[in-house]
């Protein structure tokens, strides 16, 4: 297709304002003027363009000033936009595949360069002074700069990029690389990714910025059944097909030596000299039939013995399903997760766990949550969203024969709270967590959190 383009500079408004507009434009193009000035000086006070269009001492005509201003405005606008030249034209076949015409040029067909972002959260916590049966307990309050995160990335060229997250926890007492991977783009819908990866299960493990998840603390299910933040070393595929997105990784398996009755959290290796006598598969698929609506499933499966338990195979499987709808200020989400430990009896015996301290065969947990932004239907940019979450989990849903259950691990939580966002990057949250368990030792908690992301 041949397109004809003509360029013009237009001043809108009354004549008296044209002068002001020219001044404003001159200020706008200041950066370009600075670049031009040395050339002007080097040529004895006249640029090449001056020589071509005006005699020494001549004043430029209004038409010439307007022409030059137009050229500068076009240049400034192009520089401002961040666009680059040299894109690969789309083929007819590509356009047909996409169905939307020309939306097929490479995402990576941009200039190389560094990207930078971050987030952080500080949490004040006060535990109840009595347990659910009214037994008096001491006061317990703390305030913690829970996380301060720096994301960095680098795009090498139109195929390769690097992405990473460095985490400083508890005021800097702990430092961890949460992910650091290289990605190779095979085509528009498929990439290879390798390095330290976030295990792609649940909502929070991959999306844990405080302005994204609701509540001062992450849901218990996504801390105990899906042990967020969970990152391991490996490689795999990342892709999409229509409304479906997926990730499929081979990663180092969990280390069962760290499993306890409270869950598999201690089995995370975090990519630090990780044992890889046993590998695992971790993947997820999500479908988004329309913006704001998402449903998906995640799976982790692999052996976890890591060669440490002679003659015993310890298999770990986690399956989770999740769904979310964000429509007109309402945010509803739910998640259910279940994990199975094959060989739990032998593992307990090898680790010396007895009675109610035994690692469960099965662990289950889930939550449902609803929030509504009271200001969403007005014209305010503020967000004020009360929320409620109900959660139930048990890391000893089933235990091997010969072991008993610890009723304190059969937990039920109601969380009532509110979050306020003055802008979308900053959030202030307050919630009260009613916690109970079958042992009667549940202890309520009150939280106030301050978070940011940029």
């Amino acid at each position, binding site marked *: 297709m041949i397109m004809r*383009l003509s360029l013009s500079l237009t001043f809108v408004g009354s004549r008296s304002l044209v002068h002001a507009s020219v001044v404003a434009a001159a200020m706008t193009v200041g950066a370009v003027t600075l670049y031009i000035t040395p050339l002007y000086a080097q040529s004895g006070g006249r640029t090449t363009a001056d020589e071509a269009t005006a005699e020494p001492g001549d004043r430029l005509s209004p038409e010439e000033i307007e022409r030059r201003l137009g050229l500068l405005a076009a240049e*400034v606008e192009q520089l401002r936009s961040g666009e680059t030249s040299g894109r690969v034209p789309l083929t007819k076949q590509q356009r047909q595949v996409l169905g939307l015409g020309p939306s097929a040029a490479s995402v990576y067909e941009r200039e190389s360069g560094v990207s930078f972002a971050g987030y952080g959260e500080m949490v004040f916590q006060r535990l109840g002074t009595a347990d659910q049966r009214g037994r008096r307990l001491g006061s317990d309050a703390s305030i913690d700069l829970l996380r301060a995160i720096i994301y960095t990335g680098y795009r090498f060229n139109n195929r390769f990029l690097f992405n990473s997250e460095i985490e400083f926890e508890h005021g800097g007492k702990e430092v961890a690389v949460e992910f650091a991977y290289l990605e190779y783009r095979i085509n528009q819908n498929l990439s290879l990714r390798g390095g330290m990866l976030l295990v792609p299960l649940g909502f929070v493990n991959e*999306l844990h910025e405080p302005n994204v998840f609701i509540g001062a603390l992450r849901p218990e299910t996504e801390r105990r059944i899906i042990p967020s933040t969970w990152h391991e070393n490996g490689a795999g595929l990342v892709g999409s097909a229509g409304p479906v997105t997926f990730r499929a990784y081979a990663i180092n398996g969990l280390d069962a030596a760290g499993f306890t009755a409270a869950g598999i959290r201690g089995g995370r290796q975090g990519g630090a000299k990780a044992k890889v006598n046993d590998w695992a598969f971790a993947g997820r698929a999500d479908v988004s039939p329309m913006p704001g609506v998402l449903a998906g499933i995640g799976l982790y499966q692999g052996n976890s013995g890591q060669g440490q338990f002679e003659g015993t195979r310890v298999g770990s499987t986690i399956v989770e399903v999740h769904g979310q709808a964000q429509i007109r200020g309402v945010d509803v989400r739910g998640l259910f997760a279940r994990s199975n430990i094959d060989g739990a009896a032998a593992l307990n015996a090898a680790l010396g766990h007895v009675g109610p301290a035994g690692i469960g065969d099965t662990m289950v947990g889930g939550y449902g949550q609803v929030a509504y932004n009271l200001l969403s239907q007005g014209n305010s940019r503020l967000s004020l969203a009360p929320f409620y979450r109900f959660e139930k989990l048990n890391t000893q849903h089933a235990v091997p024969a010969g072991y008993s259950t610890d009723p304190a691990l059969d937990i039920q939580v109601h969380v009532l709270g509110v979050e306020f966002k003055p802008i979308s990057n900053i959030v202030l949250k307050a919630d009260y967590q009613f916690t109970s368990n079958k042992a009667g030792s549940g202890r309520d908690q009150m939280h106030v959190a301050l978070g940011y992301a940029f």
Partner: protein
Amino acid sequence: MAVSATDAASQISRDEALAFVYPGATFSANRLFLTAEQMKDATARAGEPVRTPLIARYTASVGGTVVGRAYIETHTVRTKKESLLISLDRAGKVQRVDVVAFLEPAEYLAPTPFLDQFTGRHLEDDVRLHRAIRPIAGATLTAGAVTEAVRRVLAIDEVLGAADADRRIESGQ
């Protein structure tokens, strides 16, 4: 991070987008300078600050008849730029939104179904995130930035349309 580079909308060039939105059209590329009053008016209409007087607009014509106008809108998403080509029909409704530059990590690029939500919309209160416009899981800042950009362009188009009408009256056309 929830989404990958591969599941987001793609970027295209201005020329590609213009040719697709206005097939068979010829284009006049204009750089317009808003007056202070016009910036103030557009800000009030958009409910979003209009920060620059320099506006890049393409006017599409077929057989001498104007069929639409397209604007380049550049803004910051997190710490880096995004530029959109926001194409309007003759009546000032959004025909299509295209990403022509995105310097943030591609994970945050708006997917096509999100951008399609703006099609057919004109400047009304409901064109806001969490109202008529549903968000993107994992890319809230992008969703907000795109929505604000569309509101700015719709408001600027209204303001410029009023100025064009005044000029036509003054010239007796």
